[in-house]
């Protein structure tokens, strides 16, 4: 399938992962079977690596703590930051992780049930890994936007008229 078609399918799935192949087929003027096959192929190729619900955790009182941790690492010969990074990334507590330019090396997003959980993880697991020079932990107080979508859109509730010219 041509690249543009695949990109269009990916774009649609990114706006709404629950679009059915049938709906996508209609929207892109394609056959549902072709869409289904393209999606399967892209999953196999690792182009699509998961489907997520975008949850507004602010609305749920359950304990869920997010921390952004700046990690300084001493790079190793041949592998640079990758060996240490991979060790850190494997922990299930780590949800997102990126290598950064600037004053620190790794930006690690850690989720935990309580602040103690996160603190404990950082102190006993993350900071003790060989090659980790220092950590700075920032707790997230509130999320306003995730994946390009505003979590609270109070100002956009104004209703249109039911019929207009």
């Amino acid at each position, binding site marked *: 399938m041509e690249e543009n078609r695949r990109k269009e399918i990916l774009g649609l799935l990114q706006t709404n992962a629950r679009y059915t192949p049938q709906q996508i087929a*209609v*929207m892109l003027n394609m056959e549902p079977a072709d869409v289904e096959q393209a999606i399967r192929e892209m999953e196999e190729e690792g182009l699509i690596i998961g489907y997520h619900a975008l949850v507004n955790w602010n609305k749920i009182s359950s304990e869920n703590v997010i921390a952004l941790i700046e990690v300084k690492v001493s790079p190793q010969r041949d592998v640079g930051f990758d060996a240490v990074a991979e060790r850190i990334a494997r922990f299930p507590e780590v949800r997102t992780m990126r290598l950064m330019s600037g004053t620190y090396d790794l930006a690690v997003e850690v989720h935990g049930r309580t602040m103690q959980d996160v603190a404990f993880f950082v102190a006993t697991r993350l900071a003790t890994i060989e090659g980790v020079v220092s950590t700075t932990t920032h707790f997230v107080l509130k999320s306003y936007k995730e994946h390009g979508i505003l979590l609270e859109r109070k100002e956009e509730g104004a209703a*249109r008229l*039911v*019929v*207009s*010219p």
Partner: protein
Amino acid sequence: MKAAEEFLNPVVRAIPPSGIRRFFDLAAEMKGVISLGVGEPDFVTPWRIREACIYALEKGYTMYTSNLGLKELREEIARYLSQAFRLRYNAEKEILVTVGVSEALDLALRALVAPGDEVLIPEPTYVSYIPCTLFAGGVPVPLPTRMENGFRISAAQVEKAITPKTKVLLLAYPNNPTGAVLNRQELEDIAAVVREHDLVVVSDEIYAQLTYEGEHVSIARLPGMRERTVVLQGFSKAFAMTGWRLGYAAGNEAFIGAMTKIHQYTMLCAPITAQMAAIEALRNGLGEMRQMVRQYNYRRRLVVNAFKELGLPCVEPGGAFYAFPSIRHTGLSAEEFCERLLREERVAVVPGTAFGPSGEGFIRCSYAASVANLTEAFRRMGNFLQRLRKPASASVLRA
């Protein structure tokens, strides 16, 4: 004293209220209505544009502007028309910023039409073309179009309707309510007739950016047409700015000058905050605009396909955000169909007759609605059509 009614201008008295109005009143009383009756985007104006307006207010931009509109905005419009549609106009003298395309249309007709002049108007027509022609003292001459021709007018049809009194051809493509577009060849043929009979074209291109296949061609771009065309454009549809009321007209100095005269005595100028926002829209808002157009295009395909599955014949709309399917085979009139669909299934669509007699047998469905709402609306419409096909069992159910 005479009755209040009798004081009214007979022209105004004779014009019935918009056919859409009745449906609005009906639907307004109901709850849980899914509306495909709306002629405006379901998006909120992109944030950067709203933010520019807030900033303008904070900075104290609360005064009149020049009658023509802010110079900065006119320069942006000139640049945009040139880049997007290859239309070249002088920002100083050939562009007028108006309170929506609605005002621009009224100005154009009043500036061009003398009492008794005939104005050719393709039909089904947007609700205000005929009344505005009448307000200007003109004589509207509808050019009925048919589904079989994709609701497009032809050069031959224009030629046939021309009389010594004909002055203006009002074009509106992409079209509301049918979604029809004219291709370059069709426009060239029409332009030849217009030149031959020395007519003027008022070209309402408010849906120009919402052209889904190929590029939008303005008739003003064709040889010998720039001098006899007023192009009307605006921000409402493409930038989701309906409530801002901001449009513009582009044309030769004489046309724009005459329109400006009327504008300066009746409206003075468009609101400055909306003009400030529009500058931002043209400078930095094109990306957001394209995103919205893509969404409409997806929904367009969804809608055309859904009508096909429901067995309602529908010309594939090439522009705007309306589909105009035929409901003739149901045996109901457009009004009956819409009223029953609204009462029984809570789906609001607009009867084709709101856009003139040749709209009988059709309904206008706007697809400026979310995919979820469209899907649900079509499910309900399916139920409705199924009941129509089995009137006997339906009456048993009701009994």
